């Protein structure tokens, strides 16, 4: 049987067996409702509590500041809409960037329909926001800045600290939200140090299950819930807790602490090995930043003359799974808004693929992937050019 070479870890990751076990346990053994008075309830509550502490520890915040959501998308929506609606009397202006994840952009569009104004900051050729430009966008009405930490298509890291400093220099009380979904477990994420008030994370990019994420919300920051006014998650997120998901997130963090964290440096070397191998292909170009300015797990390249989706299918035939742009936008027949913001021409964006690693990726896998991609690009070019 053909070997499966999964390098689409920025789309999602396989659930680690230990994580699957923890989920199974909470489904069939510790199946109680955390709100129940009896022991079964307490057992489930214990799982939720432990996971909350693990998320908090990873972010260097207090467990009381961590709220579970159905994933990154909901965490982003809760942060952005929650802040905007709770603070609209102070002003109705938001600042974000042109390269945000579609869930952030969707939340902003919804708010625009409610009468808010949103500034979408441009980025440079490597995908970075200029802190000065961010500061220049601040008005007396600005209430929230939302910037992603690591871009999901190109891996570029935003200088969050500098941006926050520049923006707060103009207006002190601006709240800052960071979409940390692609940064969580990939690069150090410390909201308190960066002066960040809200930060979204997700489990399934880190060998956890889909359907669970969390929002860090600094103590004292007021949010309007997206729905309901129940008692769970301190009134911010009604509904019985997704205990199996939460158990999975907790277990994923434990596995990461043991197996992922020690490999963070090594991952940069693998990525460099991959980039070097692929840039040897004629005409190949790297999109986004290289080295320390980018996360260690995302590589985006264009191979002019070969459409990204055709290459993706050709690679899948060899057992190698990668994606075009981001999984969320790649099924629409339109070019990536991120690559467009970098200034790529349509032809270049159309011929781009994203390869994304995990802490489980090995040097041998990278070598194989490079070989498969080199072959596929050259044989497709023979047909397509």
């Amino acid at each position, binding site marked *: 049987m053909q070997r499966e070479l999964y390098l689409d870890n920025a789309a999602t990751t396989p659930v680690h067996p230990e994580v699957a076990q923890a989920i199974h346990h909470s489904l069939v053994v510790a199946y109680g409702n955390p709100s129940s008075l009896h022991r079964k309830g307490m057992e489930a509550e214990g799982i939720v509590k432990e996971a909350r502490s693990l998320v908090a520890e990873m972010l260097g915040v207090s467990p009381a500041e961590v709220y579970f959501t159905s994933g990154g998308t909901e965490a982003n929506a809760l942060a952005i809409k929650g802040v905007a609606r709770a603070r609209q009397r102070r002003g109705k202006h938001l600042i974000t960037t042109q390269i945000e994840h579609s869930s952030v952009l969707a939340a902003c569009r919804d708010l625009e329909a409610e009468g808010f104004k949103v500034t979408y900051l441009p980025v440079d050729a490597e995908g970075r926001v200029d802190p000065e430009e961010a500061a220049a966008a601040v008005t007396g009405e600005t209430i929230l800045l939302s910037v992603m930490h690591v871009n999901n298509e190109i891996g570029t890291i935003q200088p969050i600290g500098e941006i926050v400093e520049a923006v707060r220099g103009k207006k002190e009380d601006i709240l800052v939200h960071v979409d940390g979904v692609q940064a969580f477990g990939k690069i150090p994420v410390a909201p308190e140090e960066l002066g960040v008030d809200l930060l979204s994370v997700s489990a399934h990019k880190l060998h956890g299950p889909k359907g669970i994420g969390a929002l860090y919300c600094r103590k004292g920051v007021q949010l309007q819930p997206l729905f309901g006014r129940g008692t769970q998650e301190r009134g911010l997120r009604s509904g019985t807790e997704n205990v199996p998901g939460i158990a999975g997130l907790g277990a994923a963090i434990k596995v990461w602490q043991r197996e992922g964290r020690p490999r963070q440096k090594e991952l940069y070397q693998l990525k460099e090995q991959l980039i070097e191998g692929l840039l040897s292909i004629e005409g190949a170009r790297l999109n986004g930043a290289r080295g320390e300015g980018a996360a260690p797990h995302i590589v985006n390249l264009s191979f002019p003359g070969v*459409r990204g*989706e*055709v*290459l*993706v*299918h*050709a*690679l*899948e*035939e060899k057992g190698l799974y990668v994606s075009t742009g981001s999984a969320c936008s790649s*099924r*629409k*027949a339109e070019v990536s808004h991120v690559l467009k913001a970098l200034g790529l021409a349509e032809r270049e964006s159309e011929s781009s693929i994203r390869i994304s690693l995990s802490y489980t990726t090995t040097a041998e896998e990278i070598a194989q992937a490079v070989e498969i991609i080199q072959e596929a690009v050259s044989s*497709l070019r*023979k*047909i*397509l050019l």
Partner: protein
Amino acid sequence: MESVVLVRYGEIGLKGKNRPAFENRLVQNLRRALGPEIEASVRREHGRIVVDFGGREAPRQAIDRLRSVFGVVSISPAKAAPLSLDEALAGARLLVEEKLQATKGPVRFKVEAKRSNKQFPLTSPELNGRFGGYLLRAFPRLEVDVHAPDFVLHVEVREKAIYLYTEILPGPGGLPVGSSSEGLLLLSGGIDSPVAGWLAMKRGIRLRAIHFHSFPFTSDRSKEKVIDLAGVLSRYSFEPIPVYVVNFTPAQTAIRQHVPPAMTITVMRRMMLRIASRIAAQHGIPALITGESVGQVASQTLESMAAINEVTSMPILRPLVAMDKGEIVELAQQIGTYDLSVLPYPDCCTLFVPDRPETRPRIERVRAAEADMPIDELVDEAVATVDVVEPVLEPSLSL
């Protein structure tokens, strides 16, 4: 009092000696349309088909299904009373009571009686009077208006029963599927070919489909989409339409390598037709069906059709040939294929379109363009590796 659905058919009544065969086919298709879960008997009765639900009310779903069967001109959900005036009057009363439930204030009506059973003692005008008078006494809200009635109570006195109904619901017309042999539909993921298939079915043709898949140039999702489209078409024949999935990548690759860009579309269509006619012949299917329409895109000219037709002696039916895009889209929406068709997975026709396709290809030049290609080997390989996929037929259909 029995609940029945009266099914009228037009054209097939005219078909002389073939008539019993057509009627039997329609009866069979109506039965299939009802599916195993709906209990009813289907019988022929003097130029009409009666679907009998016994004492039970005809379910809404059954009425929808019966209405969508090709060959059906119209249907009427009706009550069947025995040949007795009193019972028929009682039936009419029930029917009108239901009719009035949703209304307020005065309601105008008329009675239209027809007596084809001349044994019955009352004539049609007499029946009109008796039913009219009876209902006027029973429902003070009713008024007679023969020119602009809100509803018409039809009373049909037939051989074994009196049928009473107020509704005549139009069907799709056409001929029962299976009454005109089989056709092989070239099914892409686009808007046109499913509509062409539907129109062919409407003329009684039983469909099978063929799809040209060019992985990795087209994705498995686009293949799934085609199977789903076949599934939608299957709702109209009430049996799964099999799809022959051809691995077209070797042919596509050879075309890219050997054929000048301006000629690739014509040669591609010729290869598709060669493969399709071979597979059709293997299965005893006498005709091919395509979604082409004259002038819709640059490659669908008469010259181009001539160049394509040259590779096969099989008739190629093009039901959309004279339709406008707008008309095709409207029909696609009506039959339920449009939403699937516009899903954005590129098919091989869109991915390999050259900048300037030849719009009036001359046959000699097309032959020259493909002369270097190993045509027979490519066709043999494609035919040998064909994969048959059947769409899943929805168990309970909701139209």
